[in-house]
C-alpha cells in the first residue's frame, strides 16, 4: 500500500524513528525523541490530572502566549510603526483587511486574558504553597514572567496610536521620569530631560516617532524573546524541582 510504503521509507523513518509500537519503552522513546513532546514529561503522576488543584492556569497562559505570537505575526503584515501610519493601519485592519477585525480583537482579548490567567496562576501557586522550597527559584522566574507579561501589555498599548494610547504612555512615562536620581522630575534628580531614564525609554524628550518605534521593537522582538527564555527555564524547573506540586 502507498501509505505503508511511505511509512517504511527512509525519509519518514529519519523523521519519526520509533514507530507506533505500544510498549512502555517505545512510548518513552516517542516522547523523548520529539523536541515538542518532550516539554511534557513522559509519565505524570495521577494527581497532576486534578484540575481543581492545578487550575491549568500556567498552561492557559502559555496557550494564550502562543495565540499572541500567531495573531501578532499576522498583524505585523499590515502595521507600520510610524506616527502618520500607525493609527490608519489600525483602522484599516478593523474596517478593510479580511478577518482583520477578528485578528485584532483576538490579539487584544488574549492579551487581557493572559494578564488575568497569570494572576490566577500565581494565586493558585500561592494558595497551594507551591512556591515553597524546592520550588522557590521557580517562583522568582515566574515573577520575571509576570513583569514581562505586563511590559508586553504596556508596550502593545501604544501601538494603535490613538488618544487613549498616546496619553496613557505620556502618563506612564512621566511617572518613570519621576523616579529618584535617574528621572529628570524625580527627587534628587541628577539628569536633565535629555539624559534621563524617560529619554532612554522614549528615544526623545516627548512621546514621538522614536517612542513608537522603540515600543514596537520591544513589543515584537525583545520582550517575547526574554519571555521565551524565562518560560523555557520555568518549564524546565518544574520537572527539576520535584515535578508538579501535589496536595499534601
Amino acid at each position, binding site marked *: 500500500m502507498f501509505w505503508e510504503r511511505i511509512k517504511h521509507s527512509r525519509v519518514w523513518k529519519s523523521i519519526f524513528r520509533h514507530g507506533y509500537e505500544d510498549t512502555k519503552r517505545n512510548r518513552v522513546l516517542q516522547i523523548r525523541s520529539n523536541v515538542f513532546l518532550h516539554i511534557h514529561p513522559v509519565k505524570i503522576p495521577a494527581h497532576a490530572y486534578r484540575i481543581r488543584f492545578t487550575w491549568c492556569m500556567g498552561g492557559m497562559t502559555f496557550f494564550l502566549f502562543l495565540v499572541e505570537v500567531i495573531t501578532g505575526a499576522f498583524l505585523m503584515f499590515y502595521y507600520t510603526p510610524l506616527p502618520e501610519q500607525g493609527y490608519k493601519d489600525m483602522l484599516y485592519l478593523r474596517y478593510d483587511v479580511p478577518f482583520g477585525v477578528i485578528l485584532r480583537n483576538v490579539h487584544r482579548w488574549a492579551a487581557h486574558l493572559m494578564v488575568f490567567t497569570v494572576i490566577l496562576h500565581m494565586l493558585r501557586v500561592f494558595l497551594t504553597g507551591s512556591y515553597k522550597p524546592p520550588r522557590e527559584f521557580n517562583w522568582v522566574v515566574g515573577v520575571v514572567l509576570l513583569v514581562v507579561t505586563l511590559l508586553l501589555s504596556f508596550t502593545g498599548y501604544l501601538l494603535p496610536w490613538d488618544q487613549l494610547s498616546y*496619553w496613557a504612555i*505620556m502618563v506612564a512615562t512621566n511617572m518613570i521620569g519621576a523616579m529618584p536620581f535617574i528621572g529628570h522630575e524625580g527627587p534628587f534628580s541628577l539628569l536633565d530631560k535629555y539624559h534621563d531614564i524617560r529619554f532612554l525609554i522614549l528615544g*526623545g524628550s516627548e512621546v514621538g516617532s522614536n517612542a513608537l518605534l522603540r515600543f514596537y521593537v520591544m513589543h515584537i522582538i525583545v520582550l517575547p524573546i526574554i519571555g521565551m527564555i524565562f518560560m523555557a527555564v520555568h518549564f524546565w524547573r518544574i520537572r527539576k524541582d520535584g515535578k508538579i506540586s501535589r496536595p499534601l
Partner: protein
Amino acid sequence: MKVLGWGSFFTVIGISIPATVRFLFPRVLFEKPSTFIIGNPDDFKMGISGLKVYEDWKTEQGVWIVREGSRLYALNARCTHLGCMPNYFADERIFKCPCHGSQFHSNGVNFAGPAPRPLDRLKIYINDEGMITVDRGKIYTYKDFDKKEAYLKI
C-alpha cells in the same frame, strides 16, 4: 591563557554594555525647536482689560499665552500631575485636564483634582528683532513666577 581568554571576554562585555546604553541616546533629535515667536508687543496691548487667554499656540506648541493686566506670560499646556494636555473652557474660564480631572483657574493656579502645583510657565522675552519669543526649554515653577523672564511687562 586563561587570563587572556576571560580578560578579553569581560572586556568585550564591559565595553558593550555602556556602548548599548549610549547607542540608545541619539545624537540628533527630530523634535520641534524649543523657541518660537508669538508676535509684536503691540499685538497684546489692545483689547479688554483684566485677564485674557490666547489659545493660538496651543495645538502647535502646547503653550497658552496669558495676559494678566500688564503682565504677559506663557503657560505650559502640560498638567502638573502627570503631563497630559488640559483644555481651556472659555465660558467657565478654567483649564480642565481630561486624564485625571485636575482643574486650574485661567491664570494657571490649580484648585481641584490631583495636580500638586499651578501650571508651569515658560521663558518669555523680546528677541533681537523686537519680537516676543517663548522658549519651551526653560520652565519656571510657581516659586519663580516673579523672576525676570518668567513674564513680560507690556
